[in-house]
Each structure stands twice: as structure tokens, then as C-alpha cells.
């Protein structure tokens, strides 16, 4: 009983350490804010941490994996291993409420909710869905200026009300 309690406490502590690792491409957000920290388990006295890639080619994942392992090792969790969890895939719906608030504070419009069903994917030729609000002035009168941005997860927008350009996390 005592051991089980201690193990639970250790897992909670490990989760807090891993959860605090920032995304190098979105430094305002942690892996927990992004929803890519999926699970921590124990196998034969070693911690196993599961991270999910945001995009197939996301170059920041390698850095985050290494940082999670390094911080856990520094906290005394010897031999902690970080594994990829590919399924279910990441979705911007997994970004937490805290993460969305931090994005907006950093001037990046958070993603809208994703509704996707299985089967053939419908073609989107013209803007669809609710408007993206400007993270600076709050206006809903915004337009997309480029479908792809500085990282895989963002596109570029402009606010017609305040005239400022801003980034937006693409819904996936």
C-alpha cells in the first residue's frame, strides 16, 4: 500500500517534470499544453513517456523528446525512455484551454474545433467555418493571407479592423 502510494506520487512528479518541457517552435507552450504528452507508465522500474508528433515531419519533436529525457534524468529518474505514440493521431482539439490562452497571449490565434468523420475528405475551395478572431484587437473581421506559415502548424492571417498581421494554428 505504501509502495503503491509512493509509486503514484513518483508518477505524478514525473508527469509534472515532463509536462513543463516547452515546444522550441512555440516556446510559450509546453508539451502538456499542446496535448502531445500522452501517457507515462512504468516498465521494469523504468519510466516510459509517450509523446505524439504533431505533424509527420515536425522537426521539434526530436528536441522535445531529448529535453523530456534529460529533465527526467536530472530529477533522478534513471533510464527514462521516451517513445512515440502514433495512434490516435494528434489533433489541435487536444490543445488545452490553458494552451489556447497562452497562444492568444503570444499573438497567435488558437485553432477552431475540428470536426472530421471517416471516409472521403471533402474539398475545401473557399473559406469555411467560423471566423478566426484577431488575437490583438479581438475583431472577427480577419482574412487568411497564406495557407502555410513559419512552421507546419500555422497559417498567416490579417486583421481588417486593426490592420495587424498574425499567425493562426491550423486545425488538424
Amino acid at each position, binding site marked *: 500500500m505504501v509502495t503503491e502510494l509512493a509509486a503514484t506520487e513518483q508518477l505524478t512528479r514525473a508527469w509534472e517534470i515532463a509536462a513543463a518541457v516547452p515546444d522550441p517552435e512555440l516556446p510559450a507552450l509546453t508539451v502538456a499544453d499542446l496535448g502531445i504528452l500522452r501517457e507515462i507508465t512504468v516498465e521494469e522500474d523504468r519510466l516510459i513517456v509517450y509523446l505524439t*508528433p504533431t*505533424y*509527420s515531419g515536425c522537426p521539434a519533436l526530436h528536441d522535445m523528446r531529448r529535453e523530456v529525457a534529460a529533465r527526467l534524468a536530472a530529477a533522478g529518474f534513471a533510464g527514462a525512455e521516451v517513445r*512515440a*505514440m502514433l495512434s490516435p493521431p494528434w489533433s489541435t482539439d487536444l490543445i488545452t484551454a490553458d494552451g489556447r490562452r497562452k497562444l492568444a497571449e503570444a499573438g497567435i490565434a488558437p485553432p477552431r474545433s475540428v470536426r472530421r468523420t471517416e471516409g472521403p*475528405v471533402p*474539398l475545401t*475551395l473557399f473559406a469555411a467555418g467560423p471566423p478566426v478572431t484577431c488575437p490583438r484587437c479581438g475583431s472577427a473581421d480577419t482574412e487568411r493571407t497564406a*495557407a502555410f506559415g513559419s512552421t507546419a502548424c500555422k497559417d498567416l492571417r490579417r486583421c481588417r479592423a486593426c490592420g495587424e498581421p498574425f499567425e493562426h494554428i491550423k486545425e488538424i
Partner: protein
Amino acid sequence: MGFDTAYEAITEENDSERWAFGTGFTDPLAGVDTSIPAGVDGADLAAYCLMLGDDALVMSHRLQQWLARAPELEEETALANIALDLLGQARLLLTRAGAADGTGRSEDDYAYLRGEREFRNVRLAEVDDADFAGLIARLLVFSTWRLALLARLVRSADPVLAAVAAQGVKEVTYHRDYAAQWLIMLGDGTDYSRDRAVAALADVAPLVPELFEPTAIESRLAAAGVAVDPARLRDEFSGVIAHVLDEATLDWPTAPGLAGVSGHTGRDGIHTEAMGYLLAELQSVARATPGATW
């Protein structure tokens, strides 16, 4: 090892790996169960992963060649992002191949150390683009076909392929929308842009029939619930392309398929002349300096 700015990150002492994100790659399937599902032939599965992985790798390389050539900065960013998504899919699929065929070959072994005849991509992925319209027409065809394929592959009996497909569907949806919107802009734009779009469709049309011809490996794996029979993608493909062409006020040209060699095409390792030049560029550094990392 935390940092606040990108500059601090690249100047951090005694940490040569941190000069840029994306260096010092590790196995993209690290920790993923790569055992082969019961009743599935490992060699067939590996060959299929190479087909889909080579499509993505070679198309990604062609997209990368547009960097510093694109008409506007925003388009360059878009093409780089699409290339990165496809490169990520290629890494997962080539790594899956190495786990499935029992050789344990890495993604780099497959990408850099195979000869032209060992590449299994469709010829559509490898041809050079005459101009931006040529790239857009090719990207529209490629992403429409690949999206239809991946949307079905999410139900693959191989859980790794299913997971790679589920992620890929989200990415390729953006690629297809991008290419479709550009083709409409070109087709329904000026006389000049329209002429370019018409010529681009004429160039890409002969490469399309090959996309729907299953190899024996694909047929076997489709019967086992692992692969998607490409012949079943034709209807969705035609419907999407017709919709885009309608908006673009363009017509699909009637053109015979590009002949193979004794019936052999890209999936059999028989490629066009462009492939040798592409591989020379892709592989020369890795072959000249084996084991180099940066």
C-alpha cells in the same frame, strides 16, 4: 539546457546538436510496436511501404527544388511546408519497411543507398516541372490521389500503416486544397496564366493512368486488408479533379498514358530520365561522405 530565444539556442556552448531544430534525427518509430500482423507477408509489407514512402520522398525532393525559385515568398513557405510533411511521411514509411523486411535498414539506407531501379515511386512524383503551373497541376493530381489512398489506408490491418495514414490524411488535405485553389486561380485568371495551366494539364495527364494500376504486391496486400487497391481510387479522384477543373474553367485533356518498358513502370522500378538526375542530387553527399552527420 533551456533557452529563451533562437539565438541563445544556436550559440549554447558544448551543444553542437542544437544549432538548428531537426538535427541528430532519431528513429521516428522509436518505441512503436513494429511486429508484423499475423498472416501478413513481411516482404510484401516492406515493398508496399517503400512504394508509398518513395512517392512521398521523391515528391518532397521535387518540392524542395522550388525553394528560392517560387514566385512569391508565401508560396515558397507553402511548398517548403508541404515538402516537410511528405518527408515526415517518407521517414515513417521507410523506417516501417526496414522493420518489416527483417533487414533493419534505416530510413537513410533506403533514401541514400538504393539505386534507381530499386525505387518504387510512381513516375508522377519524379518528373521535373516546366513552370509553377506545372508544379501546381502535378501537386493537385498527386495530393488528390494520395489523399484518397490514405483516407482508406486508415483501416489497414497493419496498425503502423493505419497510424501513418491517419496523420497523413490531415496533412494532405491541406496540400490538396492549396493546389486546387492555385489551379483555379491560374485557369480562371489571365489568358497567359490559363495557357500555362492548359499546358500543365497536358504534361501531367499521361502520368495519371499509372496511378490506378495495382501491382501484384498491392493486390495481395489489398486482399489481406493491409493495402488499398489503387484501382478503387479512380472514382473519387475523377470526381475531385472534375470539381476543381469546373471551377477553373479548364478541361481534362485526353491523352494516352505514358508507356512503360515492356509494361513496367515506376512501381516496378522503371523510371523516366529525370529520376537519375534527381537521385544524383539527393544522394551525392551521402555517398561521397558515408556516415556524415550535421
